[in-house]
């Protein structure tokens, strides 16, 4: 499964909101302007997700692979 997870470095996030603009399919903003990541990133939006990671003004967004489930 090429599922990626968008994770937020919360102390670094300063609620600029650029990520939600670029990737509204996955990210919306709460009442204080901080991102809510709704679901894992599938291959459709992977390129956009990478752009969002690059565009974050404080580099608070990361694309990670989910850890493998223990056997």
């Amino acid at each position, binding site marked *: 499964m090429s599922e990626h997870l968008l994770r937020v470095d919360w102390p*670094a996030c*300063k*609620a*600029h*909101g*650029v990520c939600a*603009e*670029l990737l509204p399919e996955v990210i919306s903003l709460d009442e*204080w*302007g901080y991102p809510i990541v709704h679901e894992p990133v599938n291959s459709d939006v992977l390129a956009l997700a990478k752009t969002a990671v*690059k*565009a974050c*003004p*404080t*580099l608070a967004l990361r694309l990670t692979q989910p850890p493998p489930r223990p056997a």
Partner: protein
Amino acid sequence: MTGAAILNGPALWFANRGTGFVLLVLLTLSTMLGVLSTARVTSRLWPRMLTQGLHRNVSLLAVTFLAAHITTAVVDTFVDIRWWNAFVPFSGTYKPLWLGFGSFALDLLLAVTATSLLRHRMSHKPWRAVHVMAYAAWGMGLIHGMKMGTDAATVWGAALNYGCIAAVSVSVLARFGLLAHSRLVTT
């Protein structure tokens, strides 16, 4: 016109002054867009990505004009400006102090540009520390322009200079003054 005529004539000097003023306007615009970024100003017709994209593109355009500005100054034989005077502040023979302001601004802008192109490969805090120096680069470039030539004495030259000062001042005051209360607007 022959090559020698171009080099010995006033064309390069005009090009240098022209690129200088365009550079000032572009850097002023870029600074204002940078301040706008931190203020998180956004509306339905103006997404944050637009501010960010414009800031980046205007800055890159400014860098190309900066290259042209330096090249025309160095290649021009009317004044003796060597290529290293552009990078080493206060090392020139022609108006070394005010030229030096320009060289200093160039060095700062080189650091800002390099770190910004490599932003993802470095951690955020050092990137930001370098990036904030862009304000100083703008200021020093402005002073360099005002003191180097005679254009600052003309009406249009003075209007441009003071207009740019006003534009950046208003942006900064608005951002750190009026909008500073907003709890969302943290630096």
